[in-house]
């Protein structure tokens, strides 16, 4: 399974790109996208909403399944990828190239995994 080396990961299969000290972008890993199947609905917060480390910031739904999309940082939503709200299937096509939200004013970061650590998580779930 593809695990890009420039990203950080979570044990619940989100990826987190560290843009700078206070800003991250986050999306869903290829493993999660494949397991959920064709995504048909994504629910995300709006710009200005605050998000909390360890809490769901949105949810993703495939035809038959619903899954929380977790935040592993505490901060404020500074941008939302509106395109995926209209075309959730984009995520299945390019999960690592399709960010969900950008979070700024990050005051707390939770448990983020290195690519090597995340590969171990994948190996355990396989």
């Amino acid at each position, binding site marked *: 399974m593809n695990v890009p080396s420039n990203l950080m990961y979570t044990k619940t299969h989100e990826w987190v790109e560290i843009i700078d000290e206070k800003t991250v972008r986050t999306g869903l890993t290829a493993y999660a996208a494949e397991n959920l199947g064709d995504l048909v609905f994504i629910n995300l917060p709006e710009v200005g909403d605050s998000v909390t480390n360890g809490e769901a910031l949105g949810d993703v739904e495939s*035809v038959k399944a619903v899954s929380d999309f977790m935040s592993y940082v505490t901060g404020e939503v500074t941008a939302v990828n509106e395109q995926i709200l209209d075309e959730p299937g984009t995520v299945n096509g390019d999960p690592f190239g399709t960010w969900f939200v950008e979070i700024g004013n990050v005051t707390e970061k939770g448990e983020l995994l290195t690519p090597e650590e995340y590969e171990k998580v994948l190996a355990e779930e396989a």
Partner: protein
Amino acid sequence: MELKTPLYDCHVAAKGKIVPFAGYLLPVQYEAGVIAEHMAVRQKAGIFDVSHMAEITLKGKDAMANVQNIVTSDCSKLKDGHVKYTTMCYDNGTVVDDLLVYKVSDESILLVVNAANHHKDVEWIKDHLTGDVVMEDISDNVAQIALQGPCSLDIMKKLTDEKNIPSKYYTFTEKCLVAGEECLLSRTGYTGEFGFEIYCGNDSAPVIWNALMEAGKEYGLLPCGLGCRDTLRFEAGMPLYGHEMDDTITPYEAGLGFAVKLEKGDFIGKKALEEKSKPTRTCIGLKMTGRGIAREHQDVYDGDKKIGFTASGSHCPYLNGAYATAILEMPYTALGTKVEVDVRGRRVAAEVVKTPFYVNPDQRKKL
């Protein structure tokens, strides 16, 4: 421990994603995915392993009299070679199961019931038999393959003599050869499309499956999993036990009043159904107008008032929108009524719409 159907190896070879379902290991989807499989059935063709469905035969002089006592429809005028969709009810009028009645003759009848209710149904039927009739549960010896979609007829013509193909919807050919294997060929299905269901012996199933895969290649046929079986039946307004009906819901409440014939004579549940023939709640369709997908068993509201619950809910791939069925109190069942569904703590707007959500008249076309 889950059982394997005779087609298990075919699913693995076709890279099916295998899950446990109703005691069997079955593919929820293959490589193409739920949406592509769903669209293949709407536009081309798909095949499904439905060997988990349970088959029960009733034979003897009183076979039809027993069917008439057990089910809510009137099967007395059913012709040989015809099929009827019906329900069987408890004494209190709620549903034991929905089922298909295949009439071979007055003295030989095949019942096809849900896998999830298999053992409950066998016990229920056994406990209510009277007179000269022998019941046999033949489920373990019978495999079932569904071929569904507009190209089904062309594919079937490659594998059987045209005279074997049932010309009318809800009719069947009791004994014929498909791909050289003996089977019962039925013009039925659970997708809303033109198609067939093929009942055969376990050893014949992989032969027929592989022949269908090969014959269907030029038409774009895909193997289809349980995922799209559910989205197809839901989009086409076909009920599923445990959702639109169960042992707390009557056929009238489920919108299956057409399957209850109170005037046919006595049958199990008749007295209760006579009293409950004008229900105060009924199953309707909802189109989600707000952003979100309602799922099964979520509460439905008019403002602060809870008015019912969803029975099924899903994204409908062909219609490309979110829909639900819900059992609502009257008068909220009127078309156009605006309601809200509690989707995991979030209110999502919905509107009562006509069911089935999707209709293809070709499903019933006469050949």
